[in-house]
């Protein structure tokens, strides 16, 4: 948190400083907290003479609820893959056609025909990563490439585990742990999932954010969390290792989209095109330590990111990763009841 607060303060100071010039316009970005490179924003402001304001959110649902309520004043939002179709279906996004923009040629073909936005008519890649295991190897030294680390924790880790408070990520790993499929409605399977989570939770310490601070400091000895945050933890404490749950782990990609009621559409389009430039995409990644979807950005990345075990998925675990599609409303309501049971 200290680190987060400091970053936030630094970012604000930078923005305040950069914003004093006579900006031709404004751009209001609504993005996840601790996720936007201040250097990249500063570069954008200087290149296009635009004053950028960033507002944080901590979950897809928070962002969705706030924008649906109206009167938000944001131009750009960065929803996760399985949420993009909801935003489109609810009529909240502008069909900005980034696929016709100049820098679109830089987007890695892997991220063009994506299920949540085929052909990229609405959104461009921001960052992508996986949810996996982070363990302090001083505390526990055996195999960490399994969800058992938080579902059936070894004695050394009991009471020292933090699990991301994200319904989808946690349920996904648990369903996969029992060999099920995402969006399953199989009651027998879901009963096992619920019972396992309720039992496992008694062995967890917390379900919280701010891992980049507490994992290296030793407040947590193991986490189920996002790879970029775990990499940042490792850079602060070399004993931290990352594990890919072999039973199955979720892949996420957050994509930049323009809101239908945006007031600064032209600046938002400039920003979309700007972040598809390899050098700028690399700045985004260098800050938050997640991969981006832009070809050629690797050459601008810090050396330590090109070989990072958190970012380069080993061949044997590649198959275990999967994008979370959004389930039907009936399944979501089933899952959120299980989640309430787990959180009580």
């Amino acid at each position: 948190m200290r680190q987060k607060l400091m970053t936030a303060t630094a970012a604000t100071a930078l923005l305040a400083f950069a914003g004093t010039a006579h900006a031709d316009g404004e751009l209001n970005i609504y993005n996840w907290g601790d996720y936007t490179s201040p250097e990249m924003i500063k570069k954008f402001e200087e290149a296009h003479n635009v004053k950028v304001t960033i507002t944080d959110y901590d979950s897809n649902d928070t962002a969705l609820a706030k924008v649906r309520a109206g009167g938000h004043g944001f131009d750009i939002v960065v929803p996760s893959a399985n949420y993009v179709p909801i935003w489109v279906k609810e009529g909240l996004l502008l069909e900005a056609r980034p696929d016709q923009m100049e820098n679109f040629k830089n987007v890695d073909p892997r991220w063009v025909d994506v299920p949540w936005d085929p052909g990229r008519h609405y959104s461009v890649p921001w960052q992508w990563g996986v949810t996996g295991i982070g363990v302090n190897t001083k505390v526990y030294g055996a195999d960490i490439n399994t969800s058992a680390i938080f579902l059936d924790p070894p004695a050394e880790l009991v009471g020292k585990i933090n699990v991301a408070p994200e319904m989808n990520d946690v349920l996904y790993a648990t369903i996969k742990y029992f060999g099920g499929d995402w969006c399953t409605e199989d009651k027998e399977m879901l009963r096992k999932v619920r019972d396992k989570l309720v039992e496992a939770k008694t062995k967890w310490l917390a379900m919280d954010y701010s891992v980049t601070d507490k994992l290296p400091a030793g407040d947590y000895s193991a986490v189920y969390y996002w790879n970029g945050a775990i990499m940042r933890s490792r850079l602060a404490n070399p004993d931290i290792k990352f594990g890919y749950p072999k039973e199955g782990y979720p892949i996420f990609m957050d994509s930049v989209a323009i809101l239908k009621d945006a007031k600064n559409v032209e600046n938002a389009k400039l920003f979309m095109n700007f972040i598809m430039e390899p050098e700028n995409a690399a700045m985004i990644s260098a800050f938050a330590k997640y991969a981006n979807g832009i070809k050629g950005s690797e050459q601008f990345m810090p050396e330590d990111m090109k070989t990072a075990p958190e970012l380069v998925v080993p061949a044997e675990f590649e198959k275990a990763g999967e994008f979370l599609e959004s389930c039907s409303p009936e399944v979501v309501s089933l899952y959120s009841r299980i989640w309430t049971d787990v959180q009580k």
Partner: protein
Amino acid sequence: MTSAAEIVRQAERDDVRSRWLLSAPALLIIFFAAIGPLFVMLAYSFMAKGDYGDVRFGEFSLDGWFSVLFQRDIFDDTIGLADAHLSIFWRSVKLSLITTIVTLALGFPTAYFIATRPPHTREVWVFLVTIPFWTNLLIRTFAMQEVIRNEGILNTVMIRLGLIDQPIQLMYTDAAILFGMVYVYLPLMVLPLYASMEKLDFRLVEAGYDLYATRLRVLWRIIIPLVRPGIVAGSILVFIPSLGAYVIPRVLGGGKSMMLGNLIELQFGAGRNWPLGAAISITLMAMVMVALLVYVRNAARSGAQHG
């Protein structure tokens, strides 16, 4: 029939009217900012839930209220008590009651101490009690986290002193939530207690001693009955915000032990069940109203006794 009586009546009418006019801005704000939204909540609690949060307008449904206390089993559709909600209700009430008792135990001697200082120094002490209000609650909660976490000040000092060799796990326990709530709400207990004690006629206490009452007896039969309005006011002021606490259980409880505030937030966020969230909010308010009614009846009774 004299004009004097009429003049008096006219003056009274003017007085009433100017009082209404003077309070009109406040009443308007209360109506639009507090009572209006309450009706919105009430209406939402009787609507069907939308697929992605929100409600379906005009579609009447009792599902929200039904799921406050009951649930269809996820797996076989039988109807049972919603034990997830009940255990959260119980945790909230339990933690709030303990917070009230602990702040009373700590606040009573503090207020007594301040009330028995010479008049010109009392203000300084009261001023010191209010200093925590200068800082935002969220920041104070994070500061507390720095104190009690494993690598925090408390554990580091105790390890350096050789009192313990392993850090004590305080963060993310019910004890941490309690610790946080007691710290944050203590001034709300001390101030009304002090207001009551300041008015306490200490000659009565001396008279008690003169009549050979023991210290305990003086406390029990003289001081406590006289400062009872302060005790009740302080307890209410602590109990009510404790019931709805959100930030403290979120930060110090690590999101693992929910209280009512967190449950409500969940329904409006990832749970996507606004009618249920609205129904729980109104239930919480009803609980607060009950506590307030107890207070009003108590205050009326003690007012009748001492007024």
